[in-house]
């Protein structure tokens, strides 16, 4: 066999890992499993066209069906590997098969509302997607953004307050990106003007925002709740026809305006970053600023602008927590979403599409976790919740393919130095 290059080696180890996992899953979920009670998957939520309402299958048969899916996935990746192609498609099929096999095993004798679960997964993923896009815009241009959490929290706060005071949700939604950009401004100003270590800076910004929002929450939002913290929230807008499609309709096309905004923003970022002049310049200042400078790009100005845009994007994500969901602000309500968003960005290899998939996956594990514990499945929910974090550690350790940040990420640019 011919010598493999580094990329092919990684693909090879990917295929081997999947094959080993498949054997392990087969062993745990099928061979040693004594669960025979059927699983009921329900698909129908009520508004869409009725195609199938539920699907009842014995735990073992279900596991077998989905393990076959996983096997097909491994086979496809093997063929892709042999033909020297990306193994993404095969891995996705493998992932789907494994998760469903796990679910069929874990939820034996239980009722799983699959469409509802996926709908919740998308909702949980939305702030993560906005957050990881904010991280992406910063880091692609060479500024590390640990402050996503602070951007989300502050804009959640501001959008709730503005929407309450004005009794206008749209004004709340407009104020959110401004609030996010304001937080970003601190990051940009200190990191670009003063070359402060961006990781430390991001950390401090998070503490500052946490303190400020907690303070004003206690001073203003609690005592004057009816004027300061009664925003209400957007209701879902079903898109005609599309929202009627079974399963997919309720998941993707019966959501709030912020979710539709998310589709738009992700698409724009994906296209702009790789097809526009701005995108090329942004990637240049993130990889090799000195080269960008030498062709006349003002590195620090562009960085400043991109960091502000990133804050605005995170800001819209912050609005999801308040006016996009519960309608009121509560203390530290983002609860680490900014850090999971950072994890998504890294897990998605600093790529919009990758970050999107990672965020959906993390949203899915979160939603799955709450559904399983509601159904009474005896798997500690804590371990399910750990999945995003452990997956990220595995990803940065290079156990599944190497992830690499933009080369100049986190390094301040000063003319005349390298």
């Amino acid at each position, binding site marked *: 066999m011919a010598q493999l290059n580094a990329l092919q080696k990684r693909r090879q180890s990917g295929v081997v890992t999947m094959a080993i996992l498949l054997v392990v899953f087969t062993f745990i979920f099928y061979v040693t499993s004594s669960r025979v009670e059927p699983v009921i998957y329900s698909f129908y939520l009520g508004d869409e066209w009725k195609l199938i309402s539920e699907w009842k299958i014995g735990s073992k048969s279900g596991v077998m069906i989905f393990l076959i899916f996983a096997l097909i996935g491994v086979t496809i990746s093997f063929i892709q590997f042999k033909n020297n192609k990306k193994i993404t498609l095969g891995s996705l099929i493998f992932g789907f098969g494994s998760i469903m096999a796990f679910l069929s095993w874990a939820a034996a004798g239980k009722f799983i509302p699959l469409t509802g679960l996926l709908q919740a997964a998308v909702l949980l993923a939305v702030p993560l997607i906005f957050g990881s896009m904010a991280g992406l815009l910063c*880091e692609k241009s060479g500024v*590390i953004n*640990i402050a996503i959490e602070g951007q989300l929290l502050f804009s959640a706060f501001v959008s709730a307050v503005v929407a309450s005071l004005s009794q206008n949700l749209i004004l709340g939604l407009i104020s959110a990106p401004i609030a996010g950009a304001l937080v970003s401004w601190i990051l940009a100003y*200190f*990191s670009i*003007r*003063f*070359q*402060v*270590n*961006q*990781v*430390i*800076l991001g*950390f*401090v*910004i998070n*503490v*500052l925002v*946490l*303190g*400020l929002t*907690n*303070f*004003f*929450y*206690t*001073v*203003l939002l609690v005592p004057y709740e009816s004027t300061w913290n009664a925003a209400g929230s957007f209701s879902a807008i079903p898109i005609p026809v599309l929202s009627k499609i079974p399963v997919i309709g309720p998941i993707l096309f019966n959501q709030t305006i912020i979710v539709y905004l998310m589709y738009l923003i992700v698409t724009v970022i994906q296209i702009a970053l790789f097809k526009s002049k701005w995108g090329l310049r942004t990637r240049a200042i993130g990889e090799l600023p000195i080269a960008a400078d030498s062709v006349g790009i003002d590195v620090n100005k562009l960085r400043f602008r991109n960091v502000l845009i990133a804050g605005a994007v995170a800001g819209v994500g912050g609005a999801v927590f308040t006016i996009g969901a519960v309608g009121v602000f509560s203390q530290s309500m983002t609860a*680490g979403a900014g*850090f999971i968003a*950072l*994890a998504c960005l*890294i897990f998605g290899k600093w790529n919009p599409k990758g970050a999107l998939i990672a965020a959906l996956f993390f949203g899915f594990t979160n939603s799955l976790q709450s559904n399983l514990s509601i159904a009474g499945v005896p798997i*500690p929910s*804590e*371990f399910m*919740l*750990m999945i995003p*974090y*452990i997956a*990220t*550690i595995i990803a*940065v*350790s*290079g*156990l599944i393919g190497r992830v*690499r*940040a933009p*080369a*100049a*990420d*986190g*390094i*301040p640019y000063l003319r005349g130095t390298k």
Partner: protein
Amino acid sequence: MKQFLFSLRRVTLLPALSFIFAFFIGGIIIVISDPIIMAQLNSPGKFLTSAGARIGNSYLAIFQGSIYDVNLARESGVVRGFYPLSETIVTSIPLIFAGLAVALAFRAGLFNIGAQGQFIFGAIGASYVGFNFEMSPLIHVLLVLLAGIICGGIFGGIVGLLKAKTGAHEVIVTIMLNYVAALFILWLLKTSVFLRPERFDPIAPDVNLSARLPKLLGADLRLHLGIFIALVVTYFVWWLLNRSTLGFKFRAVGANASAAKTAGISVPLVTTISMFICGGLAGLGGAVHLIGTEYALTAGVAGSIGFDAITVALLGQATPIGTLFGAVLFGALQTGGRTLLSNTGTPSEIIQVIQALIVLFIAAPALLKMVFRLKKSVESKSMAAKGWNG
């Protein structure tokens, strides 16, 4: 020892200026959040008087709540009047250990955000050894502390090992491990091993009497022996950094990893060892906190100590002695914050804001220089900016 004290002078000016500036802004925030004072804005004289009184009262309350309480002393004696000071020191003790864990890592060129997780694991180890065994007090305490060091050390060591072997960035790994630790302790406290008999809420049994640190000033004040352990450990870290070969290697790697490599220092080894020691320090903090004040392990045992530790280490400019003072100052602020609400109606959350502002200004010495129009008089070791890839 002379050197040890000398480093004190070098690190005081910048933090002092940051304090003044942060308290100034904190005062503004207190005033603008008070509708009654803001209503007087049309008569400037009145406004300034009441705003000044409001800020003065707030900061006086912090002082009374953290150092010496006159009212308490009048009622129940002078010693009792120092109850706030005892609380301040008790609050500072875990911050000292966790702060050192962050500071030492800084010096070795690593940003240890994971003190929180390492602290939690130290407390878990200490709790297990503390309530499961019964032995003579001195040995038991030593064993408990050792358990804390080992558990925290391993949890921190993983980070160093991953960084050394695979290049995984310690910031990302420690952020993620903090969440893993927080979830792990939630789960652990529900298991039969750690669940207190006849209880259903997640709380472990109290550690046995033989494993507790003795109180120093009678049962009324919570001040315990941990402060001496903290002082000894601070000195140890100073000695390690400035007087030992290993510490020299840490600083060499921290200052310039490729130069250190050229000089024959094994960077992966130093990274692993330093993260192990840092984890051990934070873990020891968890153990001391558990057997000094908490006794029973709960999910909130670490509070936000591991995160405050980062601000403490930054405040102390990543030197051991600076970290010690930073921890005491933050301990005082947090203890004082508790009386702030009861005495003046200002929510204690303002303390968080002031803490963050202090560190923001310390991290950006250039800003302070600009504001105070200093030239080169402010000595500062700004933390070198580094990228994800190196």
